[in-house]
């Protein structure tokens, strides 16, 4: 009954704004808020039952059990669950609205090696796809250019903003490099069959990359008369202010990628994909390489692979002692709202729920380099979190009542909930 009333109010409140693309961003937090009684899933593997979380001015100021004093507005979350905002790495959210409509697609610029191309300035803070992330708890994303060899420079944003400047959490955080494959698919459009065959250009392609890296490094060493935007963009890799995201799946490719990056003086390397990373865990550990592994909702790459290899791969890597996060780069952007369920799926493979949660929160924040403020529910960190009626990793119980970004109480309505309410109302449901 309460729910019905709530729906009715919302419906009334929203009918006037139906044609607006995006919910109005929430205002700054002005007074303290306390969430009490919920099971707090910290995002670092631990959990606090019957928790109290206090935040003000966008920052968590106290977290603990029932003993922590309430301040300001009280949200009674007895029986509910609190989670840190989920983080979506390597996505082009806000860069493309409708995949098939070319005019709405800004994710892949012409050119093969274009590190200077920046996603942030094209990020559409009012994207309907972006807002549809929030009701599932996905609140932060790494907005990433796609395609080519070096696709460009990403930035990390939060998902409730007036414009890209508002949205930015970390500007120009990383450069994304699609490592070549030692095998390539047949060019079926030219009459070849689709099967994988050796890529004769693999060495040459690696060599091109090495040459580019060496030149970028040399450019940074001296006073340059020329103004090379590409080389300039690369400098952050050598001084450690940017990370290099290397997309590679094969064992050989991962080893090659890491080796070349290290030899080229790149300070921070992240492997994205890592389908065969489980075969070289010691190598990755030794080189201190985190992995943003592909989502479990995927088919095995090879016919003879275990049917559940994608299901259990993140678990194998995490148990091997690697720093692991989950991304779904090869899926459509709208799928990113399923991040909590990717983590949930790992639990069916025997992974601990809190550890699974880490792969989409605390670990991702560490890998993206935003863990000082985001990714876990800890004192002093940003109050970017959400409250769910039940277990947020299971689709049946992922029912959000509140979500906060930097303490701002954001709307959980979307274009989609509006249509839902409008038509439910039409049929008197």
């Amino acid at each position, binding site marked *: 009954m309460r729910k019905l009333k709530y729906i009715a109010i919302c419906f009334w409140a929203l009918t006037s704004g139906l044609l607006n693309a995006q919910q109005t961003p929430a205002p700054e937090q002005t007074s303290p808020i306390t969430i009490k009684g919920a099971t707090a899933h910290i995002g670092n593997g631990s959990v606090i039952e019957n928790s109290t979380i206090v935040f003000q001015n966008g920052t968590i100021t106290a977290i603990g059990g029932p003993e922590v004093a309430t301040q300001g507005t009280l949200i009674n979350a007895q029986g509910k669950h609190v989670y840190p905002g989920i983080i979506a790495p390597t996505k082009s959210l806000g860069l493309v609205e409708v995949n098939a409509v070319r005019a709405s697609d800004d994710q892949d610029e012409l050119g093969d090696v274009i590190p200077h191309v920046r996603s942030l300035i094209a990020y559409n803070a009012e994207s309907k796809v972006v807002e549809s992330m929030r009701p599932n708890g996905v609140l932060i994303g790494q907005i990433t250019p796609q395609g080519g060899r070096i696709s460009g420079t990403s930035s990390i944003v939060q998902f409730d903003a007036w414009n890209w400047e508002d949205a930015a959490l970390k500007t120009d955080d990383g450069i994304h490099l699609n490592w070549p494959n030692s095998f390539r698919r047949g060019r079926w459009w030219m009459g070849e069959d689709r*099967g994988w065959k050796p890529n004769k250009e693999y060495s040459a392609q690696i060599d091109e990359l090495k040459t580019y890296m060496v030149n970028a490094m040399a450019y940074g060493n001296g006073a340059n008369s020329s103004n090379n935007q590409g080389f300039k963009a690369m400098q952050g890799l050598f001084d450690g202010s940017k990370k290099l995201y290397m997309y590679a799946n*094969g064992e050989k490719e991962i080893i090659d990628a890491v080796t070349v990056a290290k030899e080229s003086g790149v300070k921070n390397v992240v492997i994205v994909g890592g389908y065969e990373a489980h075969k070289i865990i010691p190598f990755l550990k030794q080189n201190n390489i985190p992995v943003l592994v592909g989502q479990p909702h995927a088919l095995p790459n090879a*016919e003879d692979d275990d049917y559940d290899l994608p299901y259990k791969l993140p678990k194998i890597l995490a148990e091997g002692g690697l720093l692991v996060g989950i991304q779904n780069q090869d899926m459509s952007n709208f799928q990113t709202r399923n991040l909590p369920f990717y983590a949930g799926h790992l639990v*069916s493979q025997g992974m601990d729920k809190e550890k699974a949660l880490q792969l989409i929160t605390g670990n991702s924040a560490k890998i993206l380099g935003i863990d000082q403020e985001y990714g876990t529910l800890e004192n002093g960190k940003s109050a970017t979190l959400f409250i769910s009626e039940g277990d947020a990793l299971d*689709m049946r119980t992922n029912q959000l009542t509140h979500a906060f970004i930097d303490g701002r109480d954001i709307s959980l309505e979307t274009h989609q909930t509006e249509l839902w309410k409008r038509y439910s109302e039409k049929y008197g449901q």
Partner: protein
Amino acid sequence: MKKLTVALFTGLLSMSLVAQEYFPKNDGVKEKNTNYTAFTNATVYVSPTKKINNGTLLIQDGKVVASGKSVSIPKNSVIIDLEGKYIYPSFIDPYTNFGIEKPKRAEGQGRSPEYGASREGFYWNDHIMPERNSMERFKYDKKNAEEFRAAGFGTLNTHTMDGIARGTGVLVALNDDDGDAARIIEDESGQYFSFEKSVTSRQSYPTSLMGAMALLRQMHWDADWYEKGNVDTKDRSLEALIENKNLISFFEAGSKDNNLRADKIGDQFNIQYVIVGGGQEYELIEDIKATNASYIIPINFPDAYDVSDPYAAKYLTLEQMRAWNQAPMNPKTLADNGVPFALTTFELKKPAEFKDKLNRAFEYGFDKTKALEALTTVPARLLGATDKLGTLEPGKHANFLITSGDIFDKKTTLYENWVQGNKYVVNTKDQKDIRGNYALSAGGKTYDVKISGDVAKPKAKVSMGDVEYPAKLEYSDNWVTLSFTDEKTNQVFRTTGIVPRDGSNFSGRLLLPDGAETQYTATRTGGETETEDDKDSTAKKPELMPITYPNVGYGYDAKPRQQDMLFKNATVWTGEDAGTLANTDVLVKDGKIVEIGQNLRARGATEIDASGKHLTAGIIDEHSHIAALSINEAGHNSSAEVTIEDVVDPEDINIYRNLAGGVTSIQILHGSANPIGGRSAIIKLKWGEGADDLIYDNSPKFIKFALGENVKQSNWESYSRFPQTRMGVEQVFVNYFNRAKEYDQKKKSGKPLRYDEEMEVVAEILNGERFISCHSYVQSEINMLMKVAEQFDFNVNTFTHILEGYKVADKMKEHGVGGSTFSDWWAYKYEVNDAIPYNAAIMAKAGVVTAINSDDAEMSRRLNQEAAKTVKYGGMSEEEAWKMVTINPAKLLHLDTRVGSIKEGKDADLVLWSDHPLSVYAKPEKTMIEGTVYFDLEKDKMLRQKIKEERNKLEKMMLDEKNGGGKTREPKGKDKQYFHCETIN
């Protein structure tokens, strides 16, 4: 110059043998040669099963006069003594394109597909060319003929290998000398068909295998109609087809499953094709045998893959590696099972490979008599030429081989290949065998010379002490020319000498590096030493991997069998009014659910402790594109004539993966390339069974329709096909339904009628016998199709995708149509802008039968999770959510009396889950269909282990093959494609 004289001489000689007597002659005078040629003292194979020791073959005028033990030799005979030698009928290759130039590929104009035919006065489809007469394109190719003769072939059947209906072929003897008048044995040796389009036309239709099948069927129906005089216009294609209908029909099917497809078409029209197979018949031998067809079998056994790079080996599937191991057993398996077949060089790069490949088959136990039959008497029979070819009985063409011994022995040398009485020397039989070891002395030095290898083209090794001298040996007309190089000084020694008729030594002249000449003598010191080639022939037959069902990774050693089972203490999701029952037993007997209750007695069934587990009906996916070889026939805006049932692929690994996700039944829908798509295949995922056994018995009949962006080709460059707008889509439907109505009325009136498969199918819709599942997105088009259906007095059965169904849920309810939708997909096309994950819940609450489907090989294996999303989005109860992937799709598919819930009497299509089936934490532990367990978590573990072991074993065998000097090729992945609605293949 010398060569030229020889050629001229043979030319003249043979012309006198077979001249056309009524032709005038101006370059000389007409003379006749009526002499006989007698080959005596030979071992003569008159036929593969009739061997005559010390026999005689007598020929005259290109024909066999007599053959046998006691042949009286006329006085005017040239006698050739073949003491110690063998005579065989020469080989016949029934499937080549000898002497026929490859047709040129049509140039494209623009990117838009071409829908019309490019010809006038012929059939409406360019790929149907029964009128093509290959004789008109034939040009005898001497060079190629020589290659075939060297491989033992004397007669070839040839045609233009291009198109679906390819016209007639030519049977030709490899007679270089007498011109087409003599060498052409048949100028219409048969009619030829395949599933492959012609390269000479860019006409789009058919774009798929199932389209090619439908086209062949319609071609026959049209020929029948034409033959009965019902057509006023002239169609030269159909006229040719009708005229040639008594010729033998050859069908290039090219794979084990396509053999069955071709045979099925033949059966429908009372044609028994001679089928050109693909080489994997051994995998389906029972079905192959059941076709009762004769086959032409290529022996292009795959080479081993070079797996020295372990990173590369991973791109190979077990299936591919097994094919290398197993394919050479194909001829033996066919022979053992009594399937009549001829062998062919088809698919080999050159005829010279034939011998090696055939040897491989012998290593696998292929019987040599059967092999000889497959190269002589069987092809002669398949070509209807037993009166002329295949044996050396009197009256037949004098096409035979002279060899040094048993023809299939590796060491045997083929000396001569006689065609129509003309002699063609492959290796001279009069040359002495010089293989052996020699001491070559010259200028005070003695070199060791070892001569080995082929008797006609021996190789030499020269050494002195430890030093080896790279050497080159030429041997012809009894002249030995040997040169060798001292690598230290880079000096070349050259010798030449003639081998005397008697004695075992030879001598001649040696040219020293400084130009000085001296004499040398080579003294034989011993017999031939064993060479590497010989070792190879003694190599052991490789260990044969067992065939599994299906014969790919995760196939079972034997087809899984039905079991009686009692599930004890499960949480049973009945999907019926009974709801979900705690601690309940379910008894399965003879493939059916027989009892549901508490404390049931096993009555001989295997008890399975299911406490803490959940038992549900198997998941049903209303919209799937796995397990099919093609999905769209995109060549026309309607393709009702095609059916996915024609192209079910029972070996798709996604069947197994779906089972592991709890799926037991799927509808394989045609894609959405056109407003009226093709017919569905509704199958059970019986992993290991053949294609036809997957399809439901008495399957409900369905057809795919589609609306919106895909059918109007919005998202790719194509502007030439109607419709390009939603307005046009309606007109396509109205037009087709009107025509189908007229067609049906005419049919029912009993008047003669051109059988039109497309109209037959559309009429079934109007008559309520076939149901539509329509791909749909936006509300306008959904409403439109309902109105069109109402206008024609039938109901749309299902809207699939139906992402704006929630906007017209009331209208859908009123029309009585169901909805099968995605849980949460949107934003990929403009028409899914308003797609919302609440769609399923709103439709269901409005009273529409609602299902959640996949359209995706990945999502289909976790449809339980997709159903659970309707709890989140729209607040469905768990029971109702579960129905969206079980009983509701069963209702939509008219299968709800058979499957979809746990109810006594229904098929035991069940899944045992580790946890609550809607939970993201659950996984299937057992999936069964009709009481047969097709997926079992424990068995899966064993299969993984077996795959690993077998891959290791095969990799090692391939490495050995490489290290032993065998041929290898680069690893290359399988040509596998994943389908969605939009996939045009």
